[in-house]
């Protein structure tokens, strides 16, 4: 008996300290959130709102009092409700500890890897993934890295037992790293670390053209021998899958636009696109969306406005380009939870707050092609949303009280909150 108690205690202990958060059960009853300021995610706001969701789907959104509450009611007066934030172009769950190679699964060898699928390596139980939720980041596009064509991404929700359960859109797009028009000296080899025009740029672009031409041919082939990389381009070529082109310089962006036209690629999204603000007219004409570079970065050029990264997404939005922000770069996984504050920073530098919210909700969903079921607080969409004590784009008031993914009431605990509580308790004795 005594032993059993020990075991139970031990299990509880470990359950609390080492294991990841347990995914929650399916929504069993209707939930009504009343009285909150609802930030719809499409630029609109409802001050005293009611939001009802059943079986994981939003069934009503409106002014509190105009719609009858249903099921369990959460009084959220003075609180704010937001659609779950979306982190596009992320390596969450692909790498746990950057410096420990054994935990790194984000980059396959080879140059043309459209057949490499991120979803396979996505670790739904990553401690980093669970740390997203307390800040409102509930959805992510898991994206492989490296090579010219890195592979195929999938979109996941961040409360799942395994990758299969996590996926909300499998193989949503292929990611391509457009050749750089500049090349940098390898300082560690004693070369000048400066940037110069990349002499191999054209050659590298031609390689991509060739790959695409070959892929087109292979798809039509009736041979029993299949070329995996070529066939993985099928969706991109027939317009059913997005092609995410990671590109930065103005000229390269213009080249991508031409490239897309020549190959009749219909669903093109630019990623990073630091200089997209210089070619907004061409982007608009060709209906090309942008997953803009992270606002929390230093300007690329010495002469740039100090706030260019802060306002970059605003410049695109003002010009009418469909834009969302993404967070690739140094420490991109652990810092992905700061996505709301990155959007907040864009607001600080001139963008309307509700528009800034669109950069991580409604617009992101549209760009990723998941807007029919997430991204905004609208009837028929997944009940992937959260209640914050205050403005969720501000660090001080981004305090989540409740979060739901597909209606499921998820845990807002994490490795961090557990250690916090554990040590707070130690000192309170």
């Amino acid at each position: 008996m005594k032993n059993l108690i020990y075991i139970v205690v031990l299990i509880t202990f470990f359950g609390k300290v080492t294991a990841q958060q347990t995914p929650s059960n399916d929504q069993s009853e209707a939930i009504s959130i009343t009285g909150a300021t609802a930030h719809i995610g499409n630029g609109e706001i409802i001050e005293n709102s009611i939001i009802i969701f059943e079986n994981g789907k939003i069934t009503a959104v409106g002014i509190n009092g105009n719609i009858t509450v249903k099921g369990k009611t959460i009084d959220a007066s003075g609180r704010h409700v937001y659609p779950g934030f979306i982190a596009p172009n992320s390596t969450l769950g692909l790498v746990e500890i950057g410096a420990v190679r054994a935990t790194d699964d984000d980059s396959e060898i080879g140059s043309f890897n459209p057949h490499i699928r991120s979803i396979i390596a996505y670790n739904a139980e990553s401690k980093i993934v669970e740390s997203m939720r307390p800040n409102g980041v509930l959805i992510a596009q898991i994206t492989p890295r490296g090579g010219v064509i890195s592979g195929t991404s999938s979109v996941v929700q961040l409360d799942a037992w395994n990758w299969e359960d996590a996926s909300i859109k499998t193989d949503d797009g292929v990611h391509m790293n457009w050749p750089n028009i500049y090349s940098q000296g390898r300082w560690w080899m004693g070369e000048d670390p400066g940037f110069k025009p990349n002499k191999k740029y054209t050659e590298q672009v031609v390689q991509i053209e060739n790959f695409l031409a070959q892929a087109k041919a292979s798809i039509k082939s009736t041979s029993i021998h299949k070329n995996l990389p070529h066939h993985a381009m099928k969706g991109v070529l027939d317009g059913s899958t997005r092609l995410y082109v990671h590109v930065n310089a103005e000229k390269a962006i213009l080249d991508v636009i031409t490239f897309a036209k020549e190959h009749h690629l219909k669903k093109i999204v630019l990623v990073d696109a630091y200089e997209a603000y210089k070619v907004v007219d061409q982007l608009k004409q060709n209906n090309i969306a942008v997953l803009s570079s992270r606002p929390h970065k230093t300007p690329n050029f010495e002469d740039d406005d100090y706030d260019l990264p802060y306002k970059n997404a605003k410049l695109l939005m003002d010009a009418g380009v469909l834009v969302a922000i993404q967070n690739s770069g140094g420490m991109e996984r652990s810092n992905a939870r700061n996505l709301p504050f990155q959007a907040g920073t864009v607001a600080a530098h001139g963008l309307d707050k509700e528009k800034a919210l669109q950069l991580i909700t409604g617009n992101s969903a549209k760009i990723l092609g998941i807007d029919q079921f997430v991204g905004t607080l609208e009837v028929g969409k997944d009940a992937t949303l959260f209640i914050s004590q205050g403005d969720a784009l501000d660090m001080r008031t981004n305090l989540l009280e409740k979060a739901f993914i597909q209606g499921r009431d998820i845990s807002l605990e994490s490795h961090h909150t557990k250690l916090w509580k554990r040590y707070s308790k130690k000192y309170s004795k």
Partner: protein
Amino acid sequence: MKKLLLSLVVVCWCFNFYAQEYFPKNNGVKTTDTNYTVFKNAIIHTTPSSEIKNGTLIIKDGKITQVGSNIPIPENSVIIDLKGKHIYASFIDTFTSFGIKKPKSQGGSIFSPGAKLNWKATREGYYWNDHIRPETSALTTFKYDNKKATEYITEGFGVVNTHMPDGIIRGTGLLIALNNEGTAGERLLSDRSSQLLSFKKSNTSKQVYPTSLMGAMALLRQVYHDAGWYTLGKVNTKDLSLEALNRNKNLPQIFEAESRINGLRADKVGDQFNIQYTIVGGGDEYARIDKVKATNATYIIPLDFPEAYDVSDPFMANLVSLGDMKHWNQAPTNPSVLSKNGITFSITTHKLKKLTDLNTKIMKAIEYGLDKKTALASLTTIPAQILGKSDVLGSIKKGAYANFLITENELFTKDNIIFENWVQGRKNIINDMNIQDINGNYELILAGKSYDISISGKPSAPKAEVKFGEVSLGSKIDYKDDWITLTFTDADTLKTQYTSIVTALGNTPKFWSGKAILPNGTETTFTAKKKPKEDTLDKKDIDASTTKEKPEVLPVSYPNIAYGNSKLPVPENILFKNATVWTNEIDGILVETDVLIKNGKISAVGKNLNANGAKIIDATGKHITAGIIDEHSHIAADAINEAGHNSSAEVTIEDVVFPDDINIYRNLAGGVTSIQILHGSANPIGGRSAILKLKWGENAENLIYKNPPKFIKFALGENVKQSNWGSTTRFPQTRMGVEQLFIDYFDRAKAYEKIKLSGKPYRKDIEMETIVEILNGQRYISCHSYVQSEINMLMKVAEKYDFKVNTFTHILEGYKVADKMAAHGVGGSTFSDWWGYKFEVNDAIPYNAAIMHNQGVITAINSDDAEMSRRLNQEAAKSVKYGGVSEEDALKFVTLNPAKLLHIDDRVGSIKVGKDADLVLWTDHPLSIYTKAEKTIIDGAVYFDLVKDKAMRKTIAAEKNKLSTMMLKAKNSGLKTQPPKKKEKQHFKCETLETIN
């Protein structure tokens, strides 16, 4: 008797003299040249500032025996009549590697994976560091290079100083006369002409230390100390390097700095040991000339003015920064700016792509304001003076080497020609002196017909145009050894037949007559007469004065890049009205309050303050806080890690502060006013810090706090164990070893201090001196730390040696030992929410700051990153979210608390009367995500202003546009260009490993 004695002495002397010069001779009779060579009727420029018109120069045995205007000419003279040509002293280049091959680099960075690292010196009997090579004599590898010598001679050089361009102390140089015909003994004017130094390592050794610029500086200092110690004779072992260094002490010391800022750094090291280096500059001295002047150094200046960037492709043109564009525009002014500021300098061909560029570059410098006399001095008298050879080199005087140029006109004029360059009395013909200027128009009378000839081009390679009436004829002219031959086609173009004329010019260059051969083969005679010049203005005059526009040069800014100020900001007296004031003092947050700053200090805080003439700024709805302080920064530095040893207490970041880093400006835009630049974390005992005020535009010295508290970086964990970079050969490799390393160093420091205090002579050791300061509580430790075990360990080690650790920086598991930290009295300066990037940060939590703070640890939030430092207010605000810290306390995490940790809270960190006026005016609540720094003020001067920033963006665009146009113009005029390029520095973090080889 007396006379006899004298004769004997003379005989002996003569005998000795000849004895030295005795060489056996088996190929003929001995022929002694006792004749004089006399040059008369010359304009002799004896020095750049004096000349003898109609002068005579007499040389013999490679030396000048007489120079003057009416001097007697010895009978046994060969006389050359120069007919008004000019004589100048031949040039001297003080900084070359003529005839010396630099050892090849062994390739690869020492930090590339799998690189074999030498922690020790590879030589025995020499200094402990392979990069200190004062014993190197350039002579051992020197090989006289005839071909290269001829190139130098052609440009006007008679003598070069050469050296082995390898290592930090490079040994002695050679002074070589470019006497191709002479013997090695004649040419070698000195085999110990100077000692050469640099901040670059030797290619001959892969010894790791030093890896950084500051390491090289520290090493130099230690070498000087050691050389002094060695002379006391207390060292048991022989050190050939130190012996050589002491031997070389009185030679001219030439330091290859390669940039303005490194020149200042070299000078700083030299000053400490009363050594005045002659500094080989970088060509960018003009951008902060007052500091250059303050070195009191003589400079050796390269003329490698950058080529225009090819900005014709606007996409690529983006790469070029305003700073680089301005440098292109301003660099040609460097010699004139130096000269106008009274800085003595010589000119070197070092860095020129080819020697033949020299004249063009000098002409360009003259076009940009350099005085011709100074140009001449910088190639003659100044180099002679630098090398201590003014008695025999650099001017035309009795007893000096017969090294001189014969030129057509004055040097550095457009049409000048150097005819001959005599070196040690031996003639080198560069252009035939006897060639006459035949340019002009002639009327040719031949077989009763009249032709027009027009001759132009270089006298030695003229071009001719022959016209018959209005018809141009094909022609070819040849002029050699006084003979002209001209062949031209017939006026009837259908026939391919030629007419030739040939004549010797003799004394009648304006009237030719000679033989002609007609198309049919008959010989006849011709005459040609030079026509008088037409009445148009002389082309030369037009060039020199009227049409030639003065090149436009943009003014220098501070710093000389984008967002630089045209004038340095000065303290203003400002009254901020009606702000919300975060005092960080007992008064807390005051609403609708005024703040008056005066003379750089906070003068009053209260309601309805009187302006008393101060500028009034309405701050209604805005917030004022103390300036943000970043305890852990790596911006504004040219080096961060000295990774060559496991302790580098001898290095200091103060040596390598880089004031022109754009990140300073960007930090100001985020409200940051003070930073501590910490050494990196490559080793357990790192280097000393620099604590800065971000006074954008000031030089390094003025950025550093006056009487700064002394700090040193320590580090623990993965980085010092080198877990994440190749090496597994440097101790320590475990956290266990890290403890013992500290104990070892502290023990050694104690022993060192004991010897030092005993009054006996001791070897001064900069590293030990630094560690002794730690033990005595005079220097504070800021220790990079992650996991609790090692944090605890360092506190225990410190307690054992009876001192306190001042700060744990990063301290991501501080929350696990916050109680112990509070008991020890150490502060914690942490990241708000970084984690997950390496194994030791797996338990890092964003509640860390809150827990430490709640346990009574003085807590700060730092950046370690040029990006995050721009919005440290946001990072502080995260403590409100993570752990519920009050807003007032959260703001202190980035203001007052880091000030306390840095022991500068008596000056900054809060808004208190008497403290420095280091303030930020925010557009909104300072912890709000929506706020922006509107004005950032340091010592009462406004260093960032949103409105001014907007205006600067316009200026930058306008200046870039103007310079682009100038560059396009340069390209279109046929000048060489270089592809666009973006200069890049490594973005430093703690873990950044730089290399200096």
